[in-house]
């Protein structure tokens, strides 16, 4: 069976139709938890783990706000190993290389995985076909939708929480392991059958918090929930690569030429070097033209905080803090607002933040001549990432701009067809490379605005041809036809399948 983008989807799966298909469906909500018992405080993570009576077939979830420094998921994985529990579905919002789950995949302890981002040894194990069940790659908004609708039923959510009070309320803003916003854990908190907060900082009372004790079943205090150096990077930096700077400079000019640089504007960029360079170039243009924006959103860095401080934006909507400056701002600035993944990007949320975006700057591992984007696998089919908020913001924003060098490691990023579709081409409006800008021909409104542009505007086929002239035409690696998982679009339909590596 093929979906509307021509990708093979196994029978019985819900096929992707279009990025607007969700508009024809109603929101499904399971009842959020009503809890009668008081919050229990456990002496150890093992005690909490045993109390949850974890057994085969259960789904355990985690958020990824502690990023590379997370000790909680690793400790739970150690307990799964210690108690020889098999057949668990794991649903962390992201999986980093530091998470020790590859051995549990090998042993069959973990046999299904739902996540929005995956990299490292676990992805290698899955690529070899070692996961007995399936890997489901979701978007951030899609994960929130799946949890609230009961499609992704969570039995126990182990939620790392930098500070918890004696009521069981939790905050990411305080404590030695402070990570700022806790947006990716909110759906787990509200809809998991059982919620255990794991903290290394227990206080009497929190005046402000993101995790409400009304959803919390248990709290465990441990020595450390994570390595602060891995939780947030000390600083995030603008690229120094001249090609990246050129792409960023052209992106900022494009934003201006498209009339998006205006009072009340809203913008999202990632925390990558080029994205930050775009943010920096836009910041300079906003100062030059005395523009006051409405909000910036998504993963927040010191650069975004700086723009808030200079009143270039009235608010930051923060689903995740990327650096220490962002954490500090989240703690102290009332206009730096923490939001849940659902409020951020759930298609069924009323007015999700992504729908209010004027422009979003995103990356791509591959993009094809239909503007479909892959950020899930490399050109060999190996899983190296995932949508995160890519497909969500691309769908919501008025203009979605992909920034990328024309080739990476001598491999052209433009393909006739991407290896894996993460985000459908109908939601991608612009590709900015160092050698030219391609506009999705469906966006005739944008093309009209650029008729007299001095920027190099080319067709995406011309950029493909140019990259082939420079790099040669790459061979297409072939994977096996054994499906190891799916890329789930934000509405729950399957946009592509993932295959075992050869």
């Amino acid at each position, binding site marked *: 069976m093929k979906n509307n983008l021509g990708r093979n989807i196994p029978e019985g799966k819900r096929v992707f139709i279009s990025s607007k298909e969700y508009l024809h469906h109603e929101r499904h909500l399971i009842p959020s938890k009503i809890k009668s018992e008081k919050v229990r405080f456990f002496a150890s993570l093992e005690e909490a783990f045993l109390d949850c009576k974890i057994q085969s077939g259960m789904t355990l979830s985690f958020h990824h706000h502690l990023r590379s420094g997370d000790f909680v998921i690793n400790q739970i994985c150690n307990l799964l190993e210690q108690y020889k529990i098999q057949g668990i579905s794991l649903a962390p919002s992201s999986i980093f290389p530091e998470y020790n789950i590859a051995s549990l995949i090998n042993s069959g302890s973990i046999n299904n995985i739902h996540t929005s981002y995956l990299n490292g040894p676990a992805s290698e194990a899955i690529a070899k076909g070692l996961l007995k069940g399936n890997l489901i790659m979701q978007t951030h908004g899609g994960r929130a939708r799946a949890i609230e609708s009961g499609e992704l039923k969570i039995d126990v959510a182990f939620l790392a929480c930098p500070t918890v009070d004696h009521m069981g309320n939790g905050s990411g803003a305080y404590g030695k392991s402070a990570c700022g916003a806790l947006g990716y854990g909110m759906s787990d908190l509200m809809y998991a059958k059982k919620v255990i907060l794991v903290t290394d900082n227990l206080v009497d009372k929190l005046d402000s918090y993101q995790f409400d004790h009304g959803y919390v079943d248990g709290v465990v205090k441990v020595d450390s929930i994570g390595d602060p150096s891995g939780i947030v990077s000390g600083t995030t930096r603008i690229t120094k690569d*001249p*090609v990246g*700077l*050129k792409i960023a*400079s052209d992106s900022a000019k494009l934003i201006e030429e498209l009339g998006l640089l205006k009072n009340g504007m809203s913008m999202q960029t990632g925390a990558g070097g080029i994205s930050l360079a775009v943010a920096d170039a836009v910041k300079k243009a906003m100062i030059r033209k005395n523009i006051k924006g409405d909000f910036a959103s998504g993963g927040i860095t010191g650069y975004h905080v700086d723009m808030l401080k200079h009143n270039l934006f009235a608010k930051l909507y923060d689903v995740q803090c990327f650096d220490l400056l962002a954490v500090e701002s989240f703690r102290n600035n009332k206009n730096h607002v923490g939001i849940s993944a659902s409020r951020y990007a759930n298609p069924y949320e009323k007015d999700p933040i992504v729908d209010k975006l004027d422009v979003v700057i995103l990356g791509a591992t591959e993009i094809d001549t239909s503007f479909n984007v892959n950020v899930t696998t490399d050109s060999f089919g190996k899983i190296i990432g995932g949508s995160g908020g890519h497909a969500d913001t691309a769908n919501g924003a008025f203009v979605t701009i992909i920034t990328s060098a024309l080739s990476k490691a001598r491999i052209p990023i433009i393909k006739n067809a991407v290896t894996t579709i993460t985000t459908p081409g109908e939601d991608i409006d612009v590709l900015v490379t*160092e*050698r030219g800008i391609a506009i999705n021909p469906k966006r005739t409104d944008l093309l009209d605005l650029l008729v*007299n542009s*001095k920027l190099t505007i080319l067709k995406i086929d011309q950029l493909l041809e*140019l990259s082939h*002239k*420079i790099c040669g035409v790459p061979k297409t690696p072939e994977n096996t036809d054994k499906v190891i998982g799916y890329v789930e679009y934000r509405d729950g339909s399957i946009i592509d399948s993932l295959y075992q590596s050869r």
Partner: protein
Amino acid sequence: MFRSLLFVPGNNPSMLQNADVFGADSVIFDLEDSVHVFEKDNARNLVRNYLDRYPALPTRILIRINASDSPFFEADILAIVSDRIDSIVLPKADIHAVKLLSEKLRELEKSKKLKKKISIIPIIEKATSVLEAQEISAFERVGGLLFGAEDYCSEMGIKRTDSGLELIYPRSHIAICCKAANIDAFDTPFVDVTDEEGLERDCITAFNLGFNGKAAIHPRQVQIINQQFSPSKEQIVWALKVLEAKKEADIKGLGVFSLDGKMIDKPIIERALKIRAMAERFILLEKTDEE
């Protein structure tokens, strides 16, 4: 007439392959100071192969070879002279070196049956060459002079300052020699690649002294240099207005006329013509029309 000359080390493949994307009016592939002595042959081979095979070359290509008194001079010229290059940038130039290079080029152009004549851009970076600048600039194959402040200051035993006061004489002298010979005058690079405001100020100083372009040692400097050595929007509007008024004055048979209360005569018309020519050359006219 070009504004920016971007230096690209000749032994860096990733920089070579992107040399054309930064908007520089010309690119100088460097075989000299940015290439370690052990890498000279590598850089020479890489640049030659790049020029022979790469499908996306910059529009104007210059090569900085090693100085005439270095052991690499002859091999550099032999390797890189071809129809693909426009100029050779000659370091530590003096009149003898310029003549020697010119003779070598004449022979090679003949033996390689080149279709074009390769010009020489001498770098004026020695005290003697500052004094010889007039003679060098008048040499027929010389297309422009590039001031090299770092070596000049070393020889003079002076430090470069933010104000650039210590460079007023050589800069002025070089710019005047170039104008007299009707060739390009290129200013020395600004070495702090992170200081954009400093670069802007340095460009303005050089422009006001008579330079029409400046070397860049990092791609991020190119845009600022291009901007500072281009006529401003206001200048272009003014020039077009003057030339439009001249048309009417010509019909009326007036040699001198008034515009917005100011007298317009021949020197002002020539300035307006120069500005329009630059605006056309650097594709700046449409922008003014739009705005």
